[in-house]
């Protein structure tokens, strides 16, 4: 086998049983790796009746086939499970330095089931792995645990750690890699916590990679690296971070403000944008393994109520979710709130979105001090957000902490179903910080049909609609107008395949932007020997997409769950997109037709599933239906 090692670690934390699962080349070829392969293993290993936080639930982490190759944006991995936030398939991708080390250790991934009797870590060293009790780490923040682990296992060890939020089962707790990079979305940290696993630690291993075409890989790395570095988007990301164009997004109406009630605020645009972050608080840039883009921010706030020591700084999503969405233009406060989310191990998007929902409900009188335990919620009140709300969510403390730790959909339902109208989510996953009403109507479709819920990175629509990529070799040469539905369902068909490929081959969606589709497939073939034609690669992408929808079907989701909330579809109240309606129903209907999906069951027809080799999976889902 090339690129991949063909071996996955299996650990049952309840019984202590560990084994190495060997996978056939065909499984890799059919499901690529990363999120596709993880979804396939989830199908094989999951107990579909298990509660996401129960002992029977599984958590699966799988490397991309390119992890360990010294090329920018390719050393990443995906995690998959059933989400405690949505009840649907959870998936999240992460870069950093852990994925190549796992590959060099000889493994492509880890399947974790059961529950340890005491808080523990999974330790991987010299190619072997075991569970080690680590009660002393429980209760520690991500940063504190990181320091302790480094002391014990050495400076060069790499880590995946959960914070107090994961330990307490907050439904949108995340997993941090080396206390900076995150498996952010869908509550994967809570699942790790429910297994009593505080961390996964890997010691450095010797760099060994076997490529299918050694010389070709080397020449591709040589050719692509300078291009990736010089690409305009890479330069912007390096200099200003992913928040580099918040100001630009603001003018197009893409940034949701005050819980999606506004699409324009000039003060926020200026004060929160990436260039301001660079000028005021950036001390240096950070990066992921082998990446020349180095988009990560290291920041320090020297003085004032929001002072923080040098450490990870906010990305665009964090700036918008903990700034614009909460009605604050205080960048120092955003840096501190973001840092707190990191330390507690909370997804900053769901944290910001859930607090924003509560602020609006409180303002309208639908949430009262009785519900919040006497805490007053006000737009832009960052001292309360930082000192009270975020810590109480992370520890599920008090009525407000308990309420908001459920995420916006469940929190709304638990007060009054009517309060769903203030949420901005799909399938229970809070939407990212790109408002389809201004960012592009295709985003609305992408959020609704993404298997994990409202998400702009599980498909490639975000980049295709905003003109960040063009793939003439597979028929994508549309010059799309953002604020219409024209050609969006057709684009979405390709976007599902491309997104699946990106998340399964685990290309970083920033670093790979200057690559053509043929180049992505070319590097995949040269490393892994998949022998994909462009069509084969697209088919693998669609296969993965349909499999994920079959998984969701087994969790009870149907076509009607491919929906957006009232708030996301009402005409924007101000800014560039003011008053424009999204033709959501038309887009989704057409997309279902183009994808041959049943508009009640929400999965592909039997014939379509057979076309992608999903006969057994189709038989289970469609038979169950009858």
């Amino acid at each position, binding site marked *: 086998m090339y690129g991949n090692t063909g071996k996955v670690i299996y650990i049952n934390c309840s019984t202590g049983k560990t084994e190495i699962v060997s996978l056939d080349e065909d499984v890799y070829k059919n499901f690529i790796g990363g999120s596709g392969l993880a979804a396939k293993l989830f199908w094989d290993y999951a107990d579909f009746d298990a509660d996401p936080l129960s002992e029977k639930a599984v958590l699966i982490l799988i490397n991309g086939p390119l992890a360990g190759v010294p090329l920018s944006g390719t050393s990443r991995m995906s995690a998959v499970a059933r989400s405690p936030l949505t009840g649907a398939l959870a998936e999240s991708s992460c870069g950093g330095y852990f994925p190549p080390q796992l590959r060099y250790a000889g493994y492509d991934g880890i399947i974790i089931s059961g529950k340890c009797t005491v808080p523990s870590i999974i330790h991987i060293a010299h190619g072997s792995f075991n569970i080690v009790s680590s009660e002393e780490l429980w209760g520690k923040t991500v940063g504190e645990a990181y320091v302790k682990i480094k002391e014990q296992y050495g400076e060069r060890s790499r880590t995946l750690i959960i914070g107090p939020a994961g330990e307490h089962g907050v439904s949108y707790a995340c997993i941090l890699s080396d206390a900076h990079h995150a498996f952010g979305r869908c509550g994967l940290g809570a699942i790790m916590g429910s297994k009593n696993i505080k961390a996964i630690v890997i010691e450095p291993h010797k760099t060994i990679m076997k490529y299918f075409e050694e010389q070709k890989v080397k020449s591709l790395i040589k050719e692509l690296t300078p291009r990736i570095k010089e690409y305009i*988007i890479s330069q912007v990301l390096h200099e200003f971070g992913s928040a580099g*164009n*918040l100001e*630009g997004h603001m003018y197009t109406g893409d940034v949701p403000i005050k819980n999606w009630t506004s699409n324009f605020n*000039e003060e926020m645009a200026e004060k929160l944008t990436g*260039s301001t972050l660079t000028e005021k608080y950036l001390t240096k840039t950070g990066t992921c393994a082998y990446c020349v883009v180095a988009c990560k921010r290291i920041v320090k706030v020297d003085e004032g109520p929001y002072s923080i020591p040098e450490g990870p700084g906010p990305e665009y999503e964090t700036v918008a979710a903990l700034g614009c969405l909460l009605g604050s233009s205080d960048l120092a406060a955003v840096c501190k709130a973001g840092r707190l989310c990191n330390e507690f191990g909370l997804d900053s998007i769901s944290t910001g979105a859930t607090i924003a929902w509560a602020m609006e409900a409180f303002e309208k009188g639908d949430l009262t001090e009785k519900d919040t335990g006497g805490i007053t919620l006000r737009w832009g009140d960052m001292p309360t957000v930082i000192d009270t709300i975020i810590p109480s969510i992370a520890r599920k403390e008090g009525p407000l902490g308990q309420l908001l730790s459920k995420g916006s959909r469940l929190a709304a339902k638990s007060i009054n179903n009517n309060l769903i109208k203030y949420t901005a989510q799909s399938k229970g996953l809070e939407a990212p910080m790109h408002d389809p009403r201004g960012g592009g109507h295709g985003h609305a479709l992408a959020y609704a049909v993404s298997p994990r819920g409202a998400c702009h990175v599980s498909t490639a629509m*975000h980049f295709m609609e905003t003109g960040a990529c063009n793939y003439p070799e597979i028929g994508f040469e549309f010059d799309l107008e953002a604020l219409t539905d024209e050609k969006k369902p057709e684009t979405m068909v390709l976007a599902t395949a491309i997104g699946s490929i990106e998340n399964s081959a685990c290309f970083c969606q920033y670093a790979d932007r200057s690559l053509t589709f043929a180049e992505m497939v070319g590097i995949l073939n040269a490393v892994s020997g998949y022998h994909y034609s462009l069509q084969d690669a697209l088919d693998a992408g669609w296969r993965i997409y349909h499999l994920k929808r079959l998984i969701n079907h087994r969790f009870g989701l149907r076509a009607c769950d491919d929906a957006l909330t009232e708030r996301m579809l009402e005409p924007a109240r101000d800014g*560039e997109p003011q008053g424009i309606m999204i033709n959501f129903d038309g887009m989704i209907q057409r997309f279902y037709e183009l994808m041959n999906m049943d508009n009640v069951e929400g999965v592909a027809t039997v014939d379509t599933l057979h076309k992608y080799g999903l006969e057994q999976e189709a038989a289970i889902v469609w038979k169950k239906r009858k």
Partner: protein
Amino acid sequence: MEKKKIGITVEGAGVLRKELFKHTVTLDCDARVEDLAKKIKIKKGLQIAFFRNGKRLNRNVKLHDGDTIKVVPLVFGG
């Protein structure tokens, strides 16, 4: 006879803030957005849009003396 001139204040937004720091551009009195686009220098490969009072302008909109025009880069992302 030489055409009358108008003064337009140009402000770069986001990643163009440094490059296009607030400054005045002098154009012919019948100038349109397109003429302004030709006059300012932007990094190669960067798509841009023009805004006046928060509203996007297409390239054939006429400019007026004293207008403040935001030049917004259309970089995806985040």
